[in-house]
């Protein structure tokens, strides 16, 4: 047995070269005729569908191209994105608070968290949005009052609860109920020993949540939350119930009603929803990779 530095090809670790080199097995790759056949059939089907859609005058591709980047449409994309991001942020904040409340010893706070989830999950989102729109009708003025005492400030509701704010709160509060359950599942998935180890170090409760439990729960929380974010993107089209009239679906519907051409504008809206979803999925991939540290299913970066 000799160590031959010259014959080392990898350049990383010295390799012991045996006097009699190993004769590796000659492996002939298996053939997969079935796969080849499947690809051919699939290719033909795809080409046919493509032809049926692209060459079809009923799709009105000229109208599609005209309106894909129209100013109303782009503005609708902007509002839809804004509603999605802000409503999702509201939902994440509220759900974060609720999941901590559910873990409290205080039964009143625990009950509050239960009741919130029960109500917002138990009634339809469309109905909730209608009521957010009717809020100004039901309560024309908002006033800060000392109980059984004088009023301090009074404002008309319509100046505070604008349609945009109603849309954000309506979507955000509804979503928070679902996210609470997702977060709870995430925190429940962590071994009890993690919190105990942190306690044994003398760590306080809030630091245990923030430094030990949250980063680990994220691994479980992110995939379903990504689902919810993508769902939220499309749920924003329901804000016409308020009515909020600047989002993408409302914008393309308005154009198609004017042109009597629903199909190309549905395609326009669909294209944009698909594009935004793709961007959100990329963001989710990087979030998953970041929080997958130490247990990642994605290839780890070199240290």
């Amino acid at each position, binding site marked *: 047995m000799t160590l031959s530095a010259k014959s080392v090809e990898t350049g990383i670790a010295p390799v012991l070269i045996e006097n009699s080199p190993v004769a590796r097995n000659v492996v002939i790759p298996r053939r997969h005729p079935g796969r080849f056949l499947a690809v051919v059939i699939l290719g033909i089907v795809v080409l046919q569908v493509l032809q049926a859609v692209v060459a079809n005058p009923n799709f009105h591709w000229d109208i599609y191209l005209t309106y894909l980047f129209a100013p109303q449409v782009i503005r609708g994309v902007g509002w839809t994105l804004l509603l999605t991001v802000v409503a999702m942020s509201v939902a994440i904040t509220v759900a974060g608070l609720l999941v901590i409340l559910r873990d409290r010893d205080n039964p009143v706070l625990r009950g509050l968290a239960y009741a919130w989830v029960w109500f917002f999950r138990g009634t339809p989102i469309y109905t909730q949005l209608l009521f957010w729109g009717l809020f100004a009708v039901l309560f024309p003025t908002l006033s800060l009052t000392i109980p059984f005492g004088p009023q301090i400030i009074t404002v008309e509701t319509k100046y505070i609860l604008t349609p945009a704010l109603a849309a954000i709160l309506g979507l955000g509060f509804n979503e928070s109920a679902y996210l609470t359950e997702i977060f709870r599942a995430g925190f429940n998935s962590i071994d009890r020993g993690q919190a105990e*180890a942190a306690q*044994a*170090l003398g*760590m306080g409760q809030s630091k245990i949540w923030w*430094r030990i439990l949250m980063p680990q729960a994220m691994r479980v929380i992110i995939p379903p939350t990504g689902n919810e974010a993508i769902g939220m993107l499309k749920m924003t089209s329901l804000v016409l119930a308020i009515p909020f009239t600047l989002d993408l679906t409302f914008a393309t519907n308005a154009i198609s009603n004017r042109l009597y051409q629903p199909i190309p504008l549905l395609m326009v809206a669909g294209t944009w929803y698909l594009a935004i979803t793709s961007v959100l999925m990329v963001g989710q991939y990087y979030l998953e990779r970041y929080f997958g*540290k130490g247990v990642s299913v994605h290839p780890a970066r070199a240290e």
Partner: protein
Amino acid sequence: MDMNANSSEFCVEMQNIHKFYGLVHALKGVDLKVRRGEVSVAIGPSGSGKSTLLRCINQLENISAGRIFLKGELQGFTERAGRFHPLTPGQIAAQRRLTGMVFQRFNLFPHMTALENVMEGPSYVKGWPKEKARAKAHDLLDRVGLGGLGSRYPGQLSGGQQQRVAIARALAMDPEVMLFDEPTSALDPELVGEVLEVIKNLATSGMTMVVVTHEIGFAREVGNHLIFMDQGQVVEEGYPREILEHPKNPRTIAFLSKVL
């Protein structure tokens, strides 16, 4: 005299500890005294209450009756006129800093590297600057023989290496007492030695320790004091060599005949 402190020479003093889980009487009046620098070893069959006893010391379990003193300070409560008033979570967290604990299943934080695991206590509990905590963590990893592995995540370490990181993590808080809860029970047989070696060195350096273990050889070699527990009670205690070689209680004799 202040009822919340006793001026004894004991680092750990447990008086008449009882623990109920619902109707199960898990600890039935246990006393334990550990002097500074002493290694106290608890052995006994599973379910005998030895782990529960250990977890009461750093208040991972609440006791139902009795008193625990660490360095003379009553743990978990202030006592006024015979009544116990619970401490705040912050005060309990502060008391836990007197002890360091090593768990059977390591319980390393999987999202942090070995070095970050060891730094966590000094940085985020003591509030040390990052560089100081890092230097200390490096020293401790060297001390447990893992100098080059600081950048590995727990999932990339063997069981024995993980447990040694866990020991370093506990030591990073400069505890007065180290608590070991069956530190080698989850390890492959060939990895037990490296962990016991680290614990042995710690004992030699004068660390006060309470060790729950099934390693009878280790108890004999390192322990200054041995307690044998069964069904929530201390059945026999004394010098390890004496008890292991000449057990008097029939339950001790029966247990030792099975494990030796």
